[in-house]
């Protein structure tokens, strides 16, 4: 498990967004980003991190990227719990 800010390009699974402040968590939810989601990092830190989820690109600032915990995705798609 690693913070999104440390992630390289490639596929990851979001483990937790609980570290983020409530406002940020709400914003992520409205953009359809949840713990358990499969994402693809298309631009890594330093600077903002941009990832793709269901074809939508979502950018987060560095501070925010530090609060999102991800893990490297296994090849097979795991269904959402």
């Amino acid at each position, binding site marked *: 498990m690693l913070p999104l800010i440390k992630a390289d390009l490639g596929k990851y699974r979001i483990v937790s967004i609980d570290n*983020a*402040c*409530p*406002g*940020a*968590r*709400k*914003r*992520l*939810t*409205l*953009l*359809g980003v*949840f713990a358990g989601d499969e994402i693809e990092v*298309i*631009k890594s*830190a*330093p*600077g*903002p991190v*941009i990832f793709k989820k*269901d*074809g*939508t*690109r*979502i*950018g*987060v*600032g*560095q*501070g*925010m990227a530090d609060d999102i915990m991800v893990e490297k995705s296994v090849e097979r*798609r795991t269904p*959402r719990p």
Partner: protein
Amino acid sequence: MEEKVVILAGNPNTGKTTIFNALTGLHQRTGNWPGVTVEVKEGFFTYKDIRFRVIDLPGTYSLTSFSEDERIARDILVRQKADAVITIVDSSNLERNLYLVTLLLELEQKVVIDLNMYDIAEEKGITVDIENFEKILPARFVRTVGNKREGIDELKEVIYETVREETRKASRINYGPELEGIIASLENTVKDISSPYPPRFFAVRLIEKDTDFINRVSKTAAFGRIKEILEGVDAHFTDIEDCLMDKRYGYIHGVTKECSSRKDLIEEKIELTSRLDRIFTHSFFGGIIFLFFIWLTFTIVFKWGGPFHLLLGKLFSFIAVGAARTLHLLHFPEWSVSLVTEGIITGVGSVLVFLPNIFLLFFIFSALEDSGYMARAAFVTDRLMHKIGLHGKSAIPMILGFGCNVPAIMATRTLETKKDRIITIMALPFMSCSARLPVYLLFTGIFFKKQQGTILFSLYFTGLIIGLLTARLFKSLFFREETVPIIMELPPYHAPDIKGMLVSAWERSFLFLRKAGTMIFGGVVIVWFLSYFPLSAGYATENSFTGIIGRTFSPVLRPAGFGFWQAGVALLFGLIAKELVVGTLATVSGGTEPLLGGLSRLFTPVSAYAFMLMTLLYIPCLATVAVIRQEAGTRWAVFATAWSLFIGWTVAVLFYQVFRFF
């Protein structure tokens, strides 16, 4: 013909505008929504025997009081009593897009769901079972590809059928027994409070502690009871908002899973957008590219706008001369000739000459927006802006402020929170707009011939620093809460559509023209009046009313080194538009030649610089104050005026008092 009202809602970046254009063609106008401060577009189309009025809401993800746009969208939805609400949905991203639908259903709207960009979804292996969807959700579904105009006729047909439906079976999300009990008792409590919202929607918003709704009930007799219920909620749930959102998402997730399928895709190629993002938001090159774009914007606005600007200036003096001649020939009284030429044409004209610059500014603005770059720029500036207490997105209006403060203040509408908007608006008047440039050019031309460039740069820089410091100060004084970190959806890049850019630039310029025009017109007539009377004094002399007013200001301006009435009048006239500072000084001197001689006698280099500082910082022009009032309210407009006057005077006096000894 019968008229029905339909509202277009939907997330940002779903092709909503494309659908709006496809439905209404050129029959659109930018309506001014009473009570709210957002441009809301309206359009019309006729289908069969019904004329449809289409209202295009700002793109939102939700309908809470989270951002200004969402509040406005909700407000329009309940006040307009639409005959149908069309939700434009990105077919590739059903779950997130359908979240908004759950709220629309709670608002008891008749919903049509437009599965837009269906071709892209199909390419991605997504299929949607519309019949099944319609069985579960009380909504009609249509597939469209907006940019290819596919499915628009079907959409019209479904809208037609929907508005003719009498009622539709209600659907509700089940929030679970515990919450449903709370909702029921709240519904019971609020049902006697008069409100345009359905009781259930009202109750759920209260549970979410939506401030707008809490304020609505806080003065009613039922407030005690409501508070009691809400305290009960707090005792049970740690984060009730999260919990409600989860329930809605859970519901949508279930429905979507049942009604659509998604094949696993073959590995996608690395798209152009991803490549561009790696460059444009790069921690080093991103900043350089950003600066390049700013430089380019300035170059285009000033260099390309310059010739048109001069041409319009010549046109207005030509019109003024022609009008004077004609009016004299027709034996109009002297005062009316003066009012029309020296007052209205010169005054209004001095603002209208900036139309080419403003048009170009908006043209580039829409190009940057349309292409998708603007969203990236917000990320590039985020770190710096965050330190000051501003949001990354604030950078864009601030850059625009160097062109003209008025459109820049309007551009703050893209910011998500009222707090960010207000802080940005308060900082904006200090960005040195193009109207201040003539003043700098006149004075540096006389006093700082050799260091003109450096002096100009120092003024722009001073404005920027004071603006940022103002933002920092106001943030810590009035808005304690943390700035929400930047999280934004990034639309794919695409080549901007020239026609769309022209239309958008024209629309915004026209709004500027209309608002600034009416303001300037009124102001000019008043100032002319004050300058013309009393008749014995002569137009704009020491003993005319303006001269007298100028003299009353002189003692206050003396510590800054320009305690003579001409400076007082010039600054007073400058309130209307800052370029009038130059015009006034010229008028009271009696022409260009005496102006140059007069100024070099009246000012020293130090007091001239102090005067430029004053012009830069003191009260923003009338048009800016008016637009601050429109966007942020009277209180903030008064405050911005008082604050900038204080800062302008203080800085000018400090500068003069320190440097006059060197």
